[in-house]
């Protein structure tokens, strides 16, 4: 097992990590070239889709650079980066939830107590605590904090939405760095690659669903929730991302077939996560969760597929490997 507190980059994984990022850079260079050609060919008329594509790709350069930097520094940086993502996801989510002045102390506790404690226990590798802290202690503590202020209007709605914000933005996201402390025989010191694997498969599924959908998309899956999701995009994206996952089996503890199966589950969860998060946005009448990432929207618009995939991927790996 990777000892807790061993927060430096491990030599066992650094060569493979460099290979992954070289491939990512190659893909991004190709994507940038394609989008520049498209932009050049449509230079005489404004084309919002291509402009959005360009800013998305530039943002990908930034996001991959930041992730690469965190991976290069080591486990501590990965945990801090995920805590930062959780913080931003949380503020985006709680901006849309129903709340009133009586919830102020509950919100203060979420931002300044619950989030740091969750990531601190991840940092300590204390599975027995971080697996239940939010579903048990926060789930009980927050309604108590809110009820002490004696405002009962929409009480159930307020505490449920607040709790859900915490589950999705902190609990679910924190299962990405939790992968660092999984105890897998024969995989010692390489756990950081499992994070790269999960994030890469889920995010490439998002991108490939977008690409397949734009090229072949006809039949809508759930037009009342997300008009841009099609069967062609879904199947093409999930299958091709799972094939990428199978091809990446050499960085994981999985065989090629297992890597394909785990990728399939992760991308399906990613798809459902995206769908659920779209339903919330639609209910609240917004198009994006935020405005922090050029072309993409908010942090949660990028994380929406990771939030459902991470805990499931974590626990399946924990059960079977």
């Amino acid at each position: 097992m990777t000892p807790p507190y061993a927060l430096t980059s491990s030599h066992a994984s650094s060569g493979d990590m460099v290979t992954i990022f070289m491939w990512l850079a190659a893909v991004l260079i190709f994507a940038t070239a394609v989008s520049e050609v498209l932009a050049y060919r449509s230079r005489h008329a404004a084309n919002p889709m291509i402009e959005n594509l360009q800013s998305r790709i530039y943002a990908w350069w930034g996001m991959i650079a930041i992730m690469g930097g965190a991976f290069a520094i080591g486990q501590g940086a990965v945990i801090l980066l995920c805590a930062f993502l959780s913080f931003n996801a949380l503020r985006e989510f709680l901006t849309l939830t129903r709340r009133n002045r009586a919830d102020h102390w509950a919100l203060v506790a979420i931002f300044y107590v619950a989030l740091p404690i969750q990531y601190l226990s991840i940092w300590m590798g204390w599975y027995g605590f971080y697996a239940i802290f939010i579903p048990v202690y926060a789930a009980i503590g927050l309604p108590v904090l809110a009820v002490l202020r004696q405002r009962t209007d929409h009480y159930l709605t307020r505490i449920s939405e607040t709790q859900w914000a915490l589950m999705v933005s902190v609990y679910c996201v924190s299962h990405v760095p939790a992968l660092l402390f999984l105890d897998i025989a024969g995989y010692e010191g390489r756990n950081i690659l499992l994070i790269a694997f999960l994030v890469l498969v889920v995010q490439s599924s998002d991108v490939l669903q977008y690409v397949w959908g734009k090229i072949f998309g006809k039949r809508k899956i759930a037009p009342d929730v997300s008009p841009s999701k099609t069967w062609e995009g879904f199947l093409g994206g999930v299958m091709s991302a799972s094939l990428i996952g199978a091809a990446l089996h050499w960085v994981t503890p999985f065989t090629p077939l297992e890597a394909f199966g785990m990728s399939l589950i992760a991308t399906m969860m990613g798809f459902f996560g995206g769908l659920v998060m779209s339903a919330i946005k639609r209910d609240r009448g917004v198009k994006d969760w935020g405005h922090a990432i050029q072309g993409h929207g908010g942090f949660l618009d990028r994380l929406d597929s990771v939030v459902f995939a991470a805990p499931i991927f974590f626990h399946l790996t924990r059960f079977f490997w």
Partner: protein
Amino acid sequence: MDKNKPASQLSCKYRSLLYRFFRFGGGQAISVFAKIITSPRIVFQHQLSKDRQKVYYANHTSNADTVLIWAAIGRRERTSTRPVAAADYWLASPLRRLIGKDIFNILPIERHAQNRTVDPVSAMADAIGDGSSLIIFPEGRRNDTASPLLDMKPGIYHLAKHHPDIDFVPVWIDNLGSVMPRGEIIPVPLICAVTFGAPINLKDNESQQDFMTRARHALCALAPLDAFNTEDAS
């Protein structure tokens, strides 16, 4: 000490390099802090002219409203813009006086009529005459009711009467009231939005009622869609 003069006119001896550094650095620090806490989405629906004097008028739900507008308009615009603020609050302690007068360069207004030596509207009109832009909250007090916007006081019309050529820029601040509701001391880092609308000007022979209605509509038009049909009490 003359309460109504900006600090920069008070005395030459303070205008040392160090003092200017303090004003600039303090202003930048407050602006950056406000932006970190509220991650504001700042939207200018209309390109505002740099060369025109303006009266920004905004809805008022939080003590920090002034700070957020002030941070949103940018460094250049800030140097010539004075928030109109309550004298009894900002002149109450030396620290507030320092931040209020020297960093924000507020125009202090006496809230209670019986203490007044200067009429607020003429103080504002004088400040505009001196070349300043202003930030005002025409509701006259902080709104902690369920209604998104209280009735606006007619001072804004009288100000427009004094200076019909001034641009009145509506500014809607969204969500800041939840970041730090009245009586709380710890801000919660929720996302805010600051939306600047197209400026309006007093038309020839426009009545008070017409101008007030127009100003109110211009402001309400910037609010998010659900602001005026929610049953939320916040």
